[in-house]
């Protein structure tokens, strides 16, 4: 029983991270048809923003020493600023380009950010200690669950709830959904293209910062490639969820997280190193059965 509970929490917390990542990708894809492959590098950038530039292995913590009520808003701001700057400096120029061109631009941007970090911090992973108390276990229904897992799940649920309220109940949220549905039509009704896109980038950047904080707290290291794996899975989640569907991306993020944990727990010991192969295999099966994604919105298809 407690073992099962452990698996459930593992699945939920890993799924939370993937869902937050998928959300950051899906929001931008929605308004711009851009798959932002630099998203993983946004995550790493936010983590490194807590450290002074140095090439030593021992990290010199800078903003990371701030109390959490200052650090969290500061880092969210860093993420939003980086993301917004990327749109203004890079992606705006590709607004009317085809999706493949935009995707390649995002690869290039990711490369630039990664190499900037490399220059400033060298390639060595750095240890970073954030909120050590979060790694202590807490007792939930008899099972001992790391506090961070519980916090991750709660943060994700809060973010999802806040975003749902924003998208469903506010004017900007309505405009963003309209723009994601049919961008040109939304503009012809007075929705400001730049405003909606900047807002999507800002939110996506804040999500990257939140993921960075969780990853850094969890692993205790800052590594230049730390966002790459998550970005890949988040991208897959947006595809499985049905590109363009924000709830689909979130659900698929949780599904992939769940599948990873379940494979980890149930595969024979020797096969566990190939866990990701099983996960990706499951992804292929899903896409063979439903190439349009699991949650492609039915209503989006127009009746003739």
């Amino acid at each position: 029983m407690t073992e099962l509970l452990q698996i459930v929490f593992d699945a939920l917390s890993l799924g939370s991270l993937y869902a937050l990542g998928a959300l950051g990708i899906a929001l931008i894809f929605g308004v711009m048809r851009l798959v932002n492959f630099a998203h993983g590098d946004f995550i790493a950038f936010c983590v490194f923003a807590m450290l002074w530039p140095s090439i030593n292995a021992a990290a010199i913590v800078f903003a990371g020493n701030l109390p959490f009520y200052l650090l969290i808003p500061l880092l969210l701001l860093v993420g939003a600023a980086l993301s917004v700057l990327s749109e203004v400096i890079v992606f705006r120029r590709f607004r009317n380009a085809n999706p493949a061109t935009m995707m390649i631009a995002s690869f290039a941007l990711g490369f630039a950010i990664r190499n900037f970090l490399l220059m400033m911090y060298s390639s060595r992973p750095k240890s970073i200690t954030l909120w050590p108390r979060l790694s202590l276990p807490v007792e939930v229904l008899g099972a001992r669950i790391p506090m961070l897992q519980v916090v991750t799940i709660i943060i994700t649920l809060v973010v999802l709830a806040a975003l749902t309220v924003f998208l469903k109940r506010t004017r900007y949220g309505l405009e963003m959904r309209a723009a994601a549905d049919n961008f040109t039509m939304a503009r012809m009704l007075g929705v400001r293209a730049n405003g909606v896109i900047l807002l999507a980038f800002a939110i996506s950047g804040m999500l990257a910062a939140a993921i960075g904080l969780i990853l850094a707290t969890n692993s205790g290291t800052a590594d230049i490639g730390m966002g790459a794996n998550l970005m890949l899975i988040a991208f897959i989640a947006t595809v499985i969820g049905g590109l363009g569907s924000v709830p689909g991306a979130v659900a698929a993020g949780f599904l992939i997280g769940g599948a990873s944990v379940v494979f980890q727990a149930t595969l024979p010991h020797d096969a566990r190193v190939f866990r990701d192969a099983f996960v990706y295999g499951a992804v292929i099966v899903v896409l063979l059965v439903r190439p349009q994604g699991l949650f492609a919105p039915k209503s989006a298809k127009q009746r003739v």
Partner: protein
Amino acid sequence: MTLLAVNDVTVRYGRLTALRGITLTIAEGEVLFVTGPNGAGKSTLLNAIAGVVPAISGSIAIDGAEVTGAPPEQIARRGFSLVPEGRNVFGTLTIEENLNVGAGMRADKQQVARDLESVYHEFPMLAERRHAAAGMLSGGQQQMLVIGRALMAAPRLMAIDEPSLGLAPKIIDQVYEILVRLRAQRRLTLLIVEQSSTRAMMTGGRMILMRGGRIVLEGEAGDMVKDERLKQAYFGFGDH
């Protein structure tokens, strides 16, 4: 008073010239029908006014203000509302949300609420299903929704691209009945692309005939329908 002035506008898609120096004006309160065979440039004309496709030369002014090269959202804010071909409802949004997007740029919330009620009054079917996803509506219902949505923007000039395309005759009658009434009620200026010239004649107003990106004939809809050149333009006889 001139509400829309299009002056010598040319539009190209790559090497294809879609509009060749179009000049036209619409006075406030007027109805102008644009007709012509497929590929004449009718939709391109509307899209050029809306700012969706760029004019490579010429100028467009709405109510005296130059809008050439302005983005679509700015042109919409000048009071131009386009109902494009193909009934572009936001399929993932509810009917009411679709209507609210139309009203997004208006500040007077009380007037917006009144207008919403009047759209629901005009299209009772929309009121019944206001919380249903717009993508689930039939073609005719979607046409009602996009007209209602354009009205929510409180436009001074409303352009509609082929309102009758793909609709049953009974529904087309209904759509035109509503347009005529709205025009009278709100002093709405209308620019309607319509293949059916008899429909234009029944509604009344001015009509232009386009062919090959040019205006080839212009006059009162009632007179134009009798004109032999109208048929010639469609079937490609004559000197064109």
